[in-house]
């Protein structure tokens, strides 16, 4: 009795481990395709490749447990020529982290940003997802301009949501600081 049940469970575990391994690449691709690609399309225009298929993993450091942190770069190409790239970074908002997808052209100028995930207050901090706020980032480079207007920059924060606005700005700055390395990695 015990033997039969153990054998059935063991065989089942083997089969499932195999199925998991066999479908892993396809599942990762689909997840990126349906979760990340809409954001990529929003921040990068005019590419004709499949950024998901051409994605590049970049090693950017280790966390405090010594595990490697990787950044996935989605390159955008037109007629085989690299025209830009998109990748996501995180910033601290008022409630937890805000994940931002940033599109950058080859000169390091922002082509657009898109908020992928956040848990900010509805009606206040959550308004960072509105185009009115997001579009201010377009055309900026990593400079003094890329700051909230209260700190001498060119970006007007969402009123009543300084922390959320700051979170997005810091995520975008982080992304642009990575840009020189990302550029080297994909080209």
């Amino acid at each position: 009795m015990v033997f039969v049940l153990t054998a059935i469970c063991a065989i089942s575990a083997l089969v499932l481990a195999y199925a998991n391994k066999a479908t892993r690449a396809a599942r990762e691709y689909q997840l990126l395709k349906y979760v990340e690609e809409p954001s990529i399309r929003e921040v990068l225009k005019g590419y004709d490749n499949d950024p998901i298929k051409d994605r590049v993993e970049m090693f950017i450091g280790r966390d405090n447990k010594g595990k490697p942190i990787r950044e996935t770069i989605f390159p955008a190409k037109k007629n085989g020529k690299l025209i830009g790239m998109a990748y996501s970074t995180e910033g601290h908002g008022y409630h937890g982290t805000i994940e931002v997808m940033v599109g950058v052209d080859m000169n390091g100028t922002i082509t657009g940003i898109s908020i992928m995930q956040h848990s900010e207050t509805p009606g206040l901090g959550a308004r960072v997802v509105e185009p009115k706020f997001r579009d201010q980032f377009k055309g900026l480079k990593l400079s003094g301009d890329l700051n909230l207007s209260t700190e001498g920059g060119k970006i007007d924060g969402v009123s009543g949501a300084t922390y959320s606005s700051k979170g997005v700005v810091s995520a975008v700055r982080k992304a642009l600081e990575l840009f020189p390395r990302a550029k080297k990695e994909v080209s």
Partner: protein
Amino acid sequence: MSVAQEFTKGLWKEIPPFRLVLGLCPTLAVTTAAKNGIGMGLATTFVLVCSNLLISILRNVIPKKVRIAAYIVVIASFVVIVELTMQAYFYPLYKILGIFIPLIVVNCIILGRAEAFASKNSVIPSIADGLGMGLGFTLSLTLLGAIREILGNGTVFGIHIMWESFKPFSIMLKPPGAFICLGLILTLMNWVSSRQRSH
């Protein structure tokens, strides 16, 4: 009963959600569109055929006392395979069906057929039984999904078929609509069979 009869009984005489009234949870929950009905039905059919096949092969090996546990392990393994496959190749459908794919494990039809049929019959009739029951389930879900989609959205398989000024009954896409629809189909089926019997 012949193999052909084992197959066809699932399509009318013992059609699962309407005659056996089993597996109602996915029947009511995912049938907001015909496409979802087909997806759910085919996923269930696959699990049903595979588990019937395997349980029928193992029917003399599995001890009586642990049979339910053994059946559930077999069924759950196939469900996980279906889930991984859908996630890898049919992601949008996987997103819509969501929690109802892992819940195929506890679908009464599957355990019911394993216990009532596959554990007592040889391989070929068990496959026929699983296939018939599964297709019956798929047909029922697609029918229910199509009716709800037509009345609730004016479309079937995403194609607009109702006239221009048609105002969709949005209640048909909500849970009460599923109960209303299921009730009407059950009434119709019972009426048809009672007329057949009196003749």
